[in-house]
């Protein structure tokens, strides 16, 4: 890549797989699970986190030398909360239906551990440009898992993708449904999100043995 040095592109590419925020660092699980019943909601959530984490990392990195260490958590929370309010108002203005489905989970981006985790682990010790890349990288890693989970849950649970009936119409019995295929409504219930993430972790760790934990 011409634009980014090798070290910088590592910041973006690492979190996508080997240092994924959800499956390896165990951050930001709450929202990853609760809103993935539809692909569209997962995508919007990923974009919101991308925005908040990218900008938040830059802001924290810019003011990292003036924040007193003792009250840094409150300062960080204020920065995130301000950014999340922007996201929430934009969603309410342009995608009202979707903001209803996401309900409190937009607000919960504030306490999404990915954000605080990256602030603490990276932005407090690095310059703004690298922090920005780190934020974008981790948000993309988060987005990958969200989109995989959302894809499978929507496809198997309601037979649609982004609202399009890709497997045919269950009522008129077209395409797959004509040979007796049924939707698995269980995929839409919350426990299945946990199990799907569990399976993703399983697949990832059997491909890369270095990630296996002792217990």
């Amino acid at each position, binding site marked *: 890549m011409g634009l980014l040095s090798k070290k910088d592109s590592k910041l973006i590419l690492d979190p996508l797989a080997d240092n994924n925020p959800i499956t390896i660092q165990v951050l930001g699980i*709450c929202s990853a699970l609760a809103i993935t019943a539809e692909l569209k909601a997962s995508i919007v959530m990923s974009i919101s986190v991308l925005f908040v984490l990218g900008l938040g990392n830059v802001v924290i990195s810019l003011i990292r030398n003036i924040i007193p260490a003792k009250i840094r*958590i*409150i300062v960080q*929370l204020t920065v995130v909360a301000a950014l999340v*309010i922007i996201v929430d108002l934009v969603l309410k203005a342009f995608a009202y239906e979707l903001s209803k489905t996401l309900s409190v989970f937009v607000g919960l981006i*504030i306490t999404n*551990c990915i954000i605080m985790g990256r602030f603490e682990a990276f932005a407090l010790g690095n310059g703004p440009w690298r922090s920005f890349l780190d934020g974008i990288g981790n948000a993309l890693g988060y987005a990958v898992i969200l989109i995989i989970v959302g894809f499978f849950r929507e496809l198997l649970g309601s037979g649609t993708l982004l609202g399009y009936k890709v497997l045919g119409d269950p009522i008129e019995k077209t395409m797959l449904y004509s040979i007796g295929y049924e939707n698995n409504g269980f995929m839409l219930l*919350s426990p299945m*999100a946990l199990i799907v993430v569990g399976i993703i972790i399983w697949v990832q760790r059997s491909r890369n043995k270095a990630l296996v934990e*002792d217990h």
Partner: protein
Amino acid sequence: MEHLELFFKSIFVDNMVFATFLGMCSYLAVSKKVSTAVGLGAAVIFVLAITVPLNWLLDQYILQEGALSWLGPEYANYDLSFLSFIMFIATIATMVQLVEIVVEKFSPSLYNSLGIFLPLIAVNCAILGGSLFMQSREIPTLGLALNYGFSSGIGWFLAILAIAAIREKIRYSNVPPALRGLGITFIITGLMAIGFMSFGGMLTGGEEKKEEDKTSATIEMVKQNEDKVADNTNVK
């Protein structure tokens, strides 16, 4: 009755971990040993029981549309609800710090067991989630808000206690290597969540019945009132 219903509903039916996935991060990170899980769970109950009623007051008297009318009629049109995220999180962060200072001063033994978990709690989704659900479910009174905070804390406590106990035992079983640690924890939590779903029917069956009773009761009341009015007219 209302209190009892909310109490059981928040512990079992709307369990924070199994139904809404709140506080999953610390749930997964601190559930390796039962003793630490108990410490964190107790701290969550404590902080939720303080912050939910406080945020209820904030919501009722400052943030809701028209909530400022107690200042005077000219303030009645303000709607500050867009500020609720920042107000709630600020309240939570300050309360956590305050609780930490107070506990350290008055009960060093409690501080030793809870102390290290308190700073963690400010960024636990369960705490902010409790306040946000309190707001979106429009809990009507301060007493119910206190009840809601306390009982959802207990629900969270039960969940982390259960998973910590299972994780302590699972060390002795032969889990596929790639699933060890995080993977199996996810799957067990999923299975526990399926189990907890069976509580779902426990209260809804009663609720529908109750609503019917209410409507029939109001109809009766209206009838009685009409009778009274009729009586009055007769007397006159």
